[in-house]
């Protein structure tokens, strides 16, 4: 076997790419050729020296800075891209659906009446409407929680988007349904709805943040 051919193989084999025994022609050549043996030892020593090069770590601030930039990137994506709005749309859709189911199970007239009793206020008091509106806004929490794997909902911007969409979808329906009430009470109802949606989405955000941190092996 030619020396050049053997020598070109030495580095390849030394770096651990090829496990197990070396081919017989190579070992035979090495046994017979002192120059190639010397080459092998020299390469081995050089390769070994490289292993002594101490491993370095970047400063902790690199990780912190990187994560800040990643979160900023998420916010940008959340606001500026269509896909960024998707989690908020999903959360709002689930919230609206559950809110409508709630309104079928507990009609607003009943809910307002219950709120009035709870607050012990007269018929025309806006407080009962505000509280009833809030109750219809709370299902958004379930929406945020159900799609928690979509990380953009786990941000302040995502929560605001989900609340906004929930309100944009539901407010016209509520206003139309409550048309027999004076404007001030309708405003109170919609304000309650907005308050409930905000409380829900931010409660969802807080729950997501308070969840046990996902460490290696538990990310999912």
């Amino acid at each position, binding site marked *: 076997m030619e020396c050049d051919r053997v020598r070109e193989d030495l580095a390849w084999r030394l770096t651990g790419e090829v496990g197990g025994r070396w081919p017989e022609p190579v070992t035979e050549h090495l046994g017979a050729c002192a120059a190639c043996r010397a080459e092998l030892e020299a390469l081995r020593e050089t390769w070994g020296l490289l292993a002594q*090069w101490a491993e370095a*770590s970047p400063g902790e601030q690199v990780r912190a800075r990187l994560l800040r930039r990643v979160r900023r990137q*998420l916010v940008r994506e959340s606001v500026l891209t269509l896909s960024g709005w998707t989690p908020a749309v999903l959360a709002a859709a689930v919230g609206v659906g559950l809110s409508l189911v709630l309104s079928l199970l507990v009609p607003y007239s009943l809910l307002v009446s219950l709120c009035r009793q709870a607050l012990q206020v007269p018929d025309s008091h806006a407080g009962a409407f505000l509280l009833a509106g809030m109750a219809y806004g709370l299902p958004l929490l379930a929406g945020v929680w159900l799609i928690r*794997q979509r990380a953009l909902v786990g941000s302040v911007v995502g929560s605001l988007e989900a609340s906004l969409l929930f309100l944009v979808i539901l407010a016209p329906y509520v206003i139309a349904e409550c048309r027999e009430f004076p404007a001030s009470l309708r405003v109170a109802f919609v304000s309650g709805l907005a308050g409930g949606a905000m409380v829900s989405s931010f409660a969802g955000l807080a729950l997501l943040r308070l969840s046990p941190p996902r460490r*290696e092996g538990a*990310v999912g």
Partner: protein
Amino acid sequence: MVSDETLMQQVVAGNVAAFQTLYDRHHRVVFNFLLHFLGDRSAAEDLLQETFLRVFAHREDYRPTAAVRTWLFTIARNLLIDHRRRMGARPEYPDDEALQEVPDPSPSPLAKLEGRALEERLHLAVTRLPPFQREVILFSRFAGLSHEEIARVTQASPGAVRVALHRGLRRLRDLLGPV
């Protein structure tokens, strides 16, 4: 342990926790590759940050058929090339005199060189290698990439990687001195 590919799928969905796990798992090898290639800690830290930021920004380009590690090093390498292009006006390699100036505490076998002096010599010697040989050696020694993976990252043939590894090691041995 969750595989890199599973983590990457979660990162694609915008999962920052999965991204942190990926960073914690791979940042050190990427950093050491960059640091040993450049010999400039601050530039290596900047490029490390840019590498992972680009992973996140381009996460939707990731194809599950590719190994995350290979993709990561491809990005790091591209950034390194851009960085070197930007720094084009500056001398790329230290001159031979710089290598000679580093004291050799041991007159005979290099294996006896210790601590900082050895690191200095290694650093100067490695930065004297042609870029392709340098990256092939660093990928192989510090990133633990196989020749096949190095070929994919550098877009070279496995044969070219093999030759560069051999020539690089020989040149390194010559630069470090007689063994």
